[in-house]
């Protein structure tokens, strides 16, 4: 039996030791926002946050995350409000077919959390370089991440000044 906390909710399911985390999340827990796009740990479509750190869930055993915290794309929206990254991807046309998008969002979320300082275009490009996109050419994804960073900063300013 594998028990995890996923998007703040405790969940469990009985799976074989060889079950990969990506399939545990998709098939056993029914959260299909996490995608699988390759068999060589190359594409990042399967990216989730494991204890806050973005990892490729196709290359982690489900049984190995027993008791840990997982966050997937389904956990981004809070009480009906889109995460600033989700909003920014939408506003800036940061997605086309949408298949890479959940992975991109999770990697970007970790980036914004872990780098409170200045972020430039090159930083974002480096941070998302484990996530492949065949549709967008990345330009608008980068734009979206930087826009989300601005939004978050403005929101913090508001909290501080109020």
């Amino acid at each position, binding site marked *: 039996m594998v028990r995890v906390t996923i998007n703040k909710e405790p969940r469990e399911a009985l799976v074989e030791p060889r079950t990969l985390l990506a399939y545990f999340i998709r098939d056993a827990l029914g959260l299909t926002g996490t995608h699988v796009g390759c068999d060589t740990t190359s594409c990042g479509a399967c990216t989730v946050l494991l204890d806050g750190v973005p990892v490729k869930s196709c290359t*982690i*055993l489900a049984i190995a995350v027993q008791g840990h915290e997982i966050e997937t794309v389904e956990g981004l929206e809070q009480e009906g409000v889109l995460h600033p990254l989700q909003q920014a991807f939408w506003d800036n046309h940061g997605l086309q077919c949408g298949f890479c998008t959940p992975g991109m969002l999770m990697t970007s979320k970790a980036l914004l959390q872990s780098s409170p300082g200045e972020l430039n275009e090159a930083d974002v490009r480096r941070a998302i370089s484990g996530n492949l996109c065949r549709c967008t050419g990345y330009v608008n994804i980068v734009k979206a991440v930087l826009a989300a960073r601005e939004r978050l900063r403005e929101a913090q300013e508001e909290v501080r000044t109020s």
Partner: protein
Amino acid sequence: MFPYPFRYFAPTTPEEAFGVLEQYGDEAKILAGGQSLLPMMKLRLAAPGVLIDINGISEWNRITEDAHALTQGSLIRHSHWEHTHHIRIPLLYETAGHIADPLVRNRGTVGGSLAHADPAADWGASLLALKAQVHVQSRVRERWIALRDFFIDTFVTVLEPQEIVTAIQIPLASETDFTGARYLKLERKVGDFAVVGVAVTCSFNDQGIVTEAGIGLAAVGASPLSASGAESLLINHPLTSEVIQEAAERAAEECDPQSDRRGSEEYKRAMVRVFVKRGLRAIQADWENRLKKPA
């Protein structure tokens, strides 16, 4: 895409891990970051009957330092060094950001990378340059092995089936010395293994004379290599362009690359030459600029 079935153990103490490993020996594989082992198991190129997941062993996840050496547990992940500048071992930071991609780096471990012994392993090259020692232990014995004696061939090391890499120790240069380093990697895209990787590190005394030098090479031999001949040309000299040129030529002779789709043998040798030269020049420039740097 899916591994063959296996039995899974997740020991939480070293003793437990050594015990399980001794019991299953050849049949078992250690699972560290899993970023090499699981891809191979998914493609069914590896099929261990038993997996021993060591991620729960906190002893192997620590970094300690004394006056002479830094010791890191084998479970330290690549990304740790991507975010940590160690002023006396800058090569760790310089290397980390070149390995695989950011997501793989969050998972893969330094010990796993060495044990896996991929000839293109970036840590292999860097830790050879740093003259690291590997701590290896089984239920019955423990030993320190110089990394330069550790790699035998492609994917083959001196590790016995019952042994686990528990720590890696890196000697520190004299505290009064200045140390500069570079990792230069030719890759076709992010996430690609090195076509050629070159790690260079030099410590200088206050006269600008090289007191310690290390050159490690990735993807130009059956395992990661050290260019010890080239290193010896640097020690006790200032990094003049002649010295740099000579060392670069020497390193290019010392490596042993194969022609493949990533380039001919000649090309790879030439890249070793170019990268050693560029790396040393950059380090020399760092030394010259050292006083300008804000503290």
